[in-house]
């Protein structure tokens, strides 16, 4: 009986603690398609959202060169120069998180897309202008993930 009460209390305590395990510091999506192909969808969706692609980091290549075999693991860096300039002038400490990054991670024939939700930074800043910027990035990133999911779904359906 005692144990049961503890369990119930434990569950309640976990539920009531805000941010025990924040659901959305990380935005994630799984695509049933090979990473090399998904990467192309990701790049075009990013550009359609008005961002320039700055750079593509080939993490798997680096690891392979050093004797650590890895499936495709790429990170796409992207941004808008005006936004980067504004942040580096007004909030220089935030440049660490720019350009934005999206990881394209192969899991066998499927692909995991992951991106840090910029709103994870929001609790550290009271400034409203910045909150708006972080929220806008969040919306764009979510929309990019949604686009890729929709566009690839068509292709996956056609394949079946």
């Amino acid at each position, binding site marked *: *009986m005692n*144990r*049961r009460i503890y*369990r119930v209390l*434990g*569950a309640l305590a*976990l*539920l009531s603690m805000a941010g*025990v*395990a*924040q*659901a*959305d*510091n*990380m935005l*994630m999506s*799984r695509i049933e398609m090979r990473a090399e192909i998904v990467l192309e969808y990701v790049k075009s969706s990013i550009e359609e959202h008005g961002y*320039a*692609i*700055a*750079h593509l*980091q080939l*993490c798997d290549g680096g*690891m392979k*060169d*050093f004797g*650590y075999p*890895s*499936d495709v*693991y790429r*990170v796409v*860096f992207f941004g*808008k*120069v005006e936004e*980067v*300039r504004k942040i*580096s002038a007004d909030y*220089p*400490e*935030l*440049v*660490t*998180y*720019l*350009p934005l*990054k*999206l*990881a394209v*991670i*192969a*899991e*066998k024939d*499927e692909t*995991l897309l*992951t*991106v*840090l939700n910029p709103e*994870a*930074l929001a609790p*550290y800043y009271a400034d409203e202008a910045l909150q708006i910027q972080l929220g806008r990035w969040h919306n764009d990133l979510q929309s990019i993930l949604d686009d890729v999911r929709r566009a690839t779904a068509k292709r996956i359906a056609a394949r079946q």
Partner: protein
Amino acid sequence: MHVIRVLFVAGLLLTLLLADAAAAPDGEALYVEHCAACHRLGGQGGIGLPLEAGKLANVSDDYLRKTVRVGRPGRVMPGFQRLSDAQVDAVVAFLRTQTATVERTFAEAPVPGDAARGEAVYVEHCQRCHGADGSGEGEGTGVTMSRERSFLVMPASISNRGFLASASDQMIRRSIVVGRKGSGMPAFGSGKLTDREIDDVVAYVRAFEIQAVEPEPLDADQRPTHVYESPYDFETTVENVKLALTGANFRIFPDRLLEQGLIDEFSVNTRQIGVRFCNFNVLYGMLKIEPRLGIVLPCRITIMEQPDGQVILVVPNLRVISRWFNNDELVGLWDRMEESFIEIIEEVTL
């Protein structure tokens, strides 16, 4: 008159019911949105454990609902506190349909075991997979795919607060009796362990609840980055940073200007540079623990000359970043890394 009123109320109720049915949450869509990234669309498991028929046939809906709500604090799975009860029910119903299983219900009565006696059973039969503290042997969670690890399916953390708050004694007992066939956990029923030994080990697992240590909370003054002022000019600072990193066994990538690739090469600000570095050996190990790490890689120290000529270094605060992953294994590792990292930077700005 009375009849009309009754009919009216009945009609109203019916409309409400129908409206509710029409608005019933779509369990599959919710699963795709919130769960599939980790557990895969068919429930085969990825960063998360498999959610297949053999397992689901031996757990209750109550366990599934609580697991969705509280997640696994510090063990990657977030708690979905913002879903409504109806949405959580819909996800659970979807899992039931997808696996063609019905729930197994359990008596609430605690298992009458003796934790002290259970310790010996645990050490002999469970520890090699679940670890001395119950948090799971080996690196990382879920199903092993791209990078080799010590198990094909990583043993669950059975000392996790979220697990213990969700699973009843009788359900834990059942998991031990039938094992987890697809995942390499043997069945301990049918004579492998006696009923009493099983009861005792359940009591031992339950006792993890009391021992569980919470990770050290962050100091309130921790910021997402550290900013240092350099006493040197821009070029010297960049050189010093590279020397210090090379000395600490990091591999330095070619420099990238902060705005590079975002604007033409003539307009780019050349007084903001990212020195990017990595240690592939360490990275490979860390990806086993946290495959999503790429979103904060490679490590980068940004050096900027401010309009007044002051040169600053902006350095990620690993303590803060690691906590965004809800992964205590990573937090432990990065809290230690952060210390050596700061030493390097302080050396450079002395």
